[in-house]
């Protein structure tokens, strides 16, 4: 027997629960090709009508940030409150759009 993992490759599954909302990571499945990945994802993650749309992506294709980079990546935005609407003072009596 070959030493290669014969369980197929790993795919990440994203499910859209209802039309109009974003796809959300649901988990992963094993499959040898994309059709199988889609069918396995359907059978595993939407048995209780949890979805209206499915994406599957080979896990190997996902680029993830490293935990040790989180300072560099995410801290610089902590001091930029002007990106949030609550930073601004609205004149008395003015209505929101």
């Amino acid at each position, binding site marked *: 027997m070959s030493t290669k993992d*014969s*369980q*197929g490759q790993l795919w990440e599954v994203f499910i859209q629960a209802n039309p109009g909302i974003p796809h959300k990571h649901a*988990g992963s499945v*094993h499959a*040898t*090709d994309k059709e199988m990945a889609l069918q396995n994802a359907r059978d595993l993650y939407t*048995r209780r009508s949890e979805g209206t749309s499915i994406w599957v992506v080979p896990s190997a294709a996902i680029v*993830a940030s490293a935990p040790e980079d989180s300072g560099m990546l995410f801290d610089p935005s902590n001091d930029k409150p002007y990106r949030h609407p609550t930073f601004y003072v609205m004149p008395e009596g003015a209505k929101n759009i």
Partner: protein
Amino acid sequence: MESTNNLEKFQTIIDADTKIEPKDWMPEDYRKHLIRQISQHAHSEVIGMQPEGNWITRAPSLRAKLILLAKIQDEAGHGLYLYSACETLGISREELIDQLHTGKAKYSSIFNYAAITWADIGAIGWLVDGAAIVNQISLQRTSYGPYSRAMIRICKEESFHQRQGYEIMGKLALGTPEQKEMAQDALNRWWWPSLMMFGPHDSDSPHSGKAMTWRIKRESNDVLRQRFIDKTVQQAEVIGLKIPDDKLKWNEAKGVYEHGEINWEEFNQVINGNGPLNKIRLANHISAHENGAWVREAANAYAAKQKKEVLVA
């Protein structure tokens, strides 16, 4: 090297009840403990399909057949969620299956008992799933992110399992005398093994110490077992069945049921491979795996050809 600095930081994250994620630093023992526990849990779901699966073709009504099929399917699904969670720790599913086949990895001993009558399907759902749920609810708060997320999903889906088992028992208990006898007999045989599912007493539990410090496990074996007993005794009364324990009695002061001593000799024998069906359950799994080898090989070969075609085009 596991520097003290890393360890301290790790414990701070744990103590703050923040989840550990796959790419975070973790002590090697934490990783090993998780792989052992999650894979054992995954294998239990998968081997656990067998005792119930042996009744699919004999389920006594179309409704019962549909429910049982859906339930066993959930178990396969739960096995998959857990295998995936385990894989995030850097071990492949192939390796995990190999560990099961060589006996390096264990599964819950309860599934080495035989499901010999239809009432056993009721007892398994009611008692075995009932015990599993008590444990799983507690594990939703486990410190490892992927494991916790798998448990949350599993708990959401499991809630019908215990109910369907209890429903079967209830129907039998209210049925003909023969059916009632069948239900009581199943309870007699499954009660004690269900209590054993929670593992040894806290004082004898070899893996518990670190697992609690690292919050992999959130509550002790005895605490969980007691919770299960207290809930189940009441449910047995409602449908008129008798728990097979003469020493069982309500302790008003403590607000819990006291119970008789568990047969730990039996527990150890079954864990060590001498249960009624250890060899058969494993042989079935190995045989399915081997019979499927040519199919997996073909699927891999087909995928490789497809890739080549894409490159040529």
